[in-house]
């Protein structure tokens, strides 16, 4: 006898509703497998995002039973506990349709935080030697594996309360760059993350750390930015 999962999936835009499906249970079945089954066998109009299916690309994040998760690496058995599966789009972002949300603002805030590498050398210069064991490099490495999935942004209370807040992912990236000795954009970046909605708006709830699928700690990165900006301000380097 085939056992099934009772699955509710968000359909439509912001004014949509959950639709109910029965999906055959499989061994080692992921939440993404369930969504894919619904689209291929039950309703081809279901919209969702995915690409790599192995936790590299950050495309398939959704809200699963109330918690933001990467669905390709989340086993159904881990989240249902034998009960129902409720799958919705990520919070804190406008819904485009079904499980696809609009991540424009999420990525625009990366730009607003100046979270891009500013090179200090040209291609004619020799390759810079970076020691892996300096405190700055260790701090940068601790936050570098972000896959831009938006899970931290969806989990963050401050993002929900403060529209201007840049969010954990953008600030985490700013922190890794601040610790990259090859980067030359620190002054502008520190200014950008110290404006309204910058690192000082973080309330340290640490939801970003609790939900990051790559076990990063953006809250620690933001605390680092707070220290760095405060120190620069007291030294008169940040006007």
């Amino acid at each position, binding site marked *: 006898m085939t056992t099934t999962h009772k699955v509710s999936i968000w359909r439509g835009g912001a004014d949509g509703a959950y639709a109910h499906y029965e999906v055959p249970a499989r061994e080692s079945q992921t939440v993404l497998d369930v969504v894919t089954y619904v689209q291929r066998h039950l309703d081809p109009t279901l919209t969702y995002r995915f690409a790599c299916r192995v936790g590299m690309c950050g495309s398939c994040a959704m809200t699963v039973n109330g918690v933001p998760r990467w669905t390709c690496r989340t086993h159904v058995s881990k989240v249902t506990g034998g009960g129902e599966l409720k799958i919705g789009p990520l919070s804190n972002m406008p819904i485009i349709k079904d499980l696809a949300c609009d991540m424009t603002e999420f990525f625009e805030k990366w730009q607003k935080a100046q979270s891009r590498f500013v090179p200090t050398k040209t291609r004619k210069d020799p390759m810079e030697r970076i020691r892996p064991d300096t405190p700055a490099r260790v701090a940068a490495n601790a936050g570098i594996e972000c896959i831009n999935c938006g899970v931290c942004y969806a989990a963050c209370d*401050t993002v929900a309360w*403060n529209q201007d807040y840049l969010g954990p992912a953008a600030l985490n990236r700013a922190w890794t760059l601040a610790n990259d000795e090859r980067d030359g954009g620190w002054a502008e970046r520190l200014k950008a993350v110290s*404006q*309204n909605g910058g690192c*000082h*708006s973080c309330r340290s709830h640490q939801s970003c750390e609790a939900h990051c699928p790559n076990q990063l700690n953006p809250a620690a990165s933001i605390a680092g930015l*707070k220290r760095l900006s405060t120190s620069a*301000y007291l030294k008169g380097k940040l*006007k």
Partner: protein
Amino acid sequence: MRPLRLYLVQRVTAAIMVPLVFLHLGLILYAVQGGLSAQEILSRTQGSVFWGGIYGLFVLCASFHVSIGLANILQEWTPLKRIAAANIAHTFALIVMLLGFRAVYAVVF
């Protein structure tokens, strides 16, 4: 750099208030040992520049600290915009300061 300055003021005032709270708690434990009466407390605090300074500093720090936090909460939890939230927070700070200094005045002078 307004958010950074507010952040800094809130942290500095918190850092000042922590030892003052412990000093206050220690004083309570010390004071109640011989029985507690208004007359006994006033006999120690009246005319004391030290206790006036300690509690005056606490009132000042609390007014700044609380109003910055209140402005943040109002902006995040209500539809109020920054200016409106700041106005309410400023008024609240003024009230806390007035009530606090009135209490300090009452026990020191």
